[in-house]
């Protein structure tokens, strides 16, 4: 491992593109293999057309416990030795690159499409074969007593579309194949070609339940590239909004999990309390999901004193209403017995595959961007990392419960001590030929936006990695050996985004 293979960077600090090391594909593959075995994790790995006939692969890796972030790249032709042949964590990313850029990596594991769309980031001189949307090979389990249950893309409830194929023996799931891509809207292309205002609106629509998370990461990248410094007040308001978003989703998820085990009182009360979090966001931003709030340079809406008092009071009341319901949920033995030991993700699986966010925190992997790569308000108001160990549905519920308590405290404290200053400052032209990595701890986990600028300070590449991209395989792993009937509960305990994955 050569010391200069990777350039050290940090969250929301720009680096010159010229300083990013360009390795041979074999060396990048080697580095990724060694480093992912040595405690590093792939944050993003993506292709950008370099010349008319070559592609630059850029890898962003992180060592969370040390708070280290690093980038390296390799310029390749259409055929190159597959990175995933040696580094298992690279395989999903490499499938994505093959689909987006039209590469033909040699010797990798599987290059079945992730989203089933035509390449939209291919070097123009490449002869790109458009994939067949129908062709889809996967490991089918065969045998006389094995059967397959296929579900979706139109599911039984009001849910986003995805196709699930359970290979089962009786009730026991032997393997779960998840096919996504139904929500693909061409997000990255739009982020790269739209003007700044429209691109912000697109960032708000990457995943409808992570409006604040994605918009903050996208704007954070632009602010770094424009050397725009947000005021402490703007940072605090963004933090409040992000934690309200976390509260709404965690409370809603606990309610939905409660409903899935037929414990209806908690499910009904939690659905209302989730709405109260959304209404708080609406009081601040005019929209229940916080749309319109996050803008480059700060926030579009201030929280004046009287509103701050009102918000603090309502959050306090929310906390009082929530406590007995959570008590009710976690004390019920019928709920405990259904949550426990179902859908287990092990620490080993998590580390090997690079799962993030609350899925990682519920199996003894204490990753949290707010702590490991602290930015904005989180540098001053640290939130302790919530953690559980068992990796089952109960552990994921417990992590949510802990995070709810900590986010409530955070919001009450921040809204009561808002620093003075403007809520928004100017965010001017972007510096040319730079790269920046903006990480945000959305409620599901790490939201990563990697932005590169061209010679004129325009956007050359805007890569988005939603936490669901890392975590969908965790759901398939957790279902193995469980009963089909436990799928709804297990699925709800992850509550992954289809839209965030499909882009």
């Amino acid at each position, binding site marked *: 491992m050569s010391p200069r293979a990777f350039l050290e960077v940090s969250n929301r600090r720009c680096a010159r593109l010229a300083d990013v090391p360009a390795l041979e594909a074999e060396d990048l593959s080697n580095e990724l293999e060694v480093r992912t075995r040595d405690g590093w994790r792939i944050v993003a790995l993506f292709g950008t057309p370099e010349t008319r006939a070559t592609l630059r692969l850029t890898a962003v890796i992180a060592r969370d416990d040390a708070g280290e972030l690093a980038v390296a790249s390799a310029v390749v032709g259409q055929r190159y030795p597959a990175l995933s042949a040696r580094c298992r964590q690279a395989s999903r990313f490499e499938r994505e690159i093959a689909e987006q850029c039209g590469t033909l990596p040699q010797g990798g594991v599987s290059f079945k499409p992730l989203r089933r*769309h*035509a390449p939209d980031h291919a070097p123009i001189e490449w002869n790109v074969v458009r994939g067949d*949307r129908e062709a889809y090979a996967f490991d089918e389990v065969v045998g006389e007593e094995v059967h397959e249950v296929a579900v979706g*893309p*139109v599911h*039984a*409830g*009001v*849910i*986003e*579309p995805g196709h699930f194929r359970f290979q089962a023996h009786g009730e026991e799931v032997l393997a779960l194949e998840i096919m996504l*891509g*139904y*929500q*693909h*809207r*061409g*997000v990255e*292309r*739009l982020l790269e*070609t*739209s003007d700044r205002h*429209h691109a912000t*609106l*697109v960032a*708000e*629509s*990457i*995943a*409808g*339940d992570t*409006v604040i998370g994605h918009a903050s990461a996208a704007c954070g990248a632009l602010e770094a590239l424009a050397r725009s410094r947000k005021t402490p007040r703007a940072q605090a308001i963004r933090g409040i909004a992000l934690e309200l978003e976390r509260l709404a989703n965690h409370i809603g998820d606990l309610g939905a999990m409660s409903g899935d085990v037929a414990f209806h*009182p908690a499910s*009904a*009360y939690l*659905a*209302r309390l989730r*709405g109260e979090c959304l*209404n708080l966001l*609406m*009081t*601040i*931003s*005019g*929209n*229940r*999901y916080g*749309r*319109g709030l996050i803008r480059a340079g700060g926030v*579009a*809406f201030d929280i004046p004193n009287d509103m701050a008092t009102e918000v603090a009071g309502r959050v306090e009341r929310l906390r009082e*209403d929530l406590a*007995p*319901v959570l*008590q*009710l949920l976690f*004390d019920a033995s019928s709920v405990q017995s259904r949550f426990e030991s179902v859908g287990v993700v092990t620490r080993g699986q998590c580390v090997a595959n690079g799962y993030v966010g609350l899925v990682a925190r519920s199996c003894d992997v204490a990753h949290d961007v707010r702590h490991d790569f602290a930015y904005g308000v989180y540098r001053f108001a640290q939130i302790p990392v919530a953690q559980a160990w068992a990796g089952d549905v109960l552990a994921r519920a417990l992590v949510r419960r802990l995070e709810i308590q900590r986010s409530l405290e955070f919001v009450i404290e921040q809204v009561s001590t808002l620093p003075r200053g403007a809520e928004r400052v100017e965010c001017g032209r972007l510096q040319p030929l730079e790269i920046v990595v903006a990480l945000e701890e959305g409620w599901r986990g790490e939201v990563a936006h990697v932005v590169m600028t061209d010679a004129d300070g325009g956007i050359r590449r805007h890569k988005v990695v939603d936490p669901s991209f890392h975590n969908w395989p965790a759901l398939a792993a957790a279902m193995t050996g469980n009963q089909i009937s436990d799928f709804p509960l297990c699925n709800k305990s992850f509550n992954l*985004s*289809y*839209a965030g994955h499909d882009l």
Partner: protein
Amino acid sequence: MLDLLRNRFRQRTDPVPMPATSASLPPRFRGRPAVLEASGADASRSLPVIDLGCSVFAPEEFAEGSRVAAFTIDYRMAVRTREALVTSTGEVELAAALDAKMRALLGRSLRLRSVAAGSCGGCEAELTALGNVVFDMARFGVQFVASPRHADGIVVSGVVSANMREALEKTYDAVPDPKIVIAVGACAISGGVFRESAEATGIPPSIPVDLWIPGCPPHPLTILDGLLRLLDKVR
């Protein structure tokens, strides 16, 4: 058991009355825009055309200080035709009820199948919220069902991505006649912020829409108001 009862008394579970008073919405809420009164020399200017079907209700659309139009906190915006969403006064002709024959056929219930077809998940979240104790659409006989064969119609959200087009058409075909189609959100109506994307194909003409509900995402009250107007339960 005692805990259950204690919680039952403690938690507020009263549904919001319909039609709701605007008092339930905060002053910053961005509902139906209104064209501001022109005064003096300004009076002769031509009125702007606002297409609620394209609007994502971003604060910049009618930025503060704009003399032309501003958002109001009126949540009622659902209409029966695409053209009715285009307005030069901000006023829209709110949805009329289904004809008497269709209403008689439905009786006191409306069963809908939701199809998310290239969305961000925001509209589905608000459709789900319609079932909670606050909006409680079930009290009006409205319910989402699992199978299109049990449904009176479909609710479409999202841009209709290339990958969902076939599934949407199959779901629509599986609903028995006569059937209703409801388009929810800017994406389903016009492509929303994804309008320029090659992946956004839009609701095909073979699926005629009966109710258009604008918003990004529409507030649950906006959706509920539209459904109740269709059923003649709100006028």
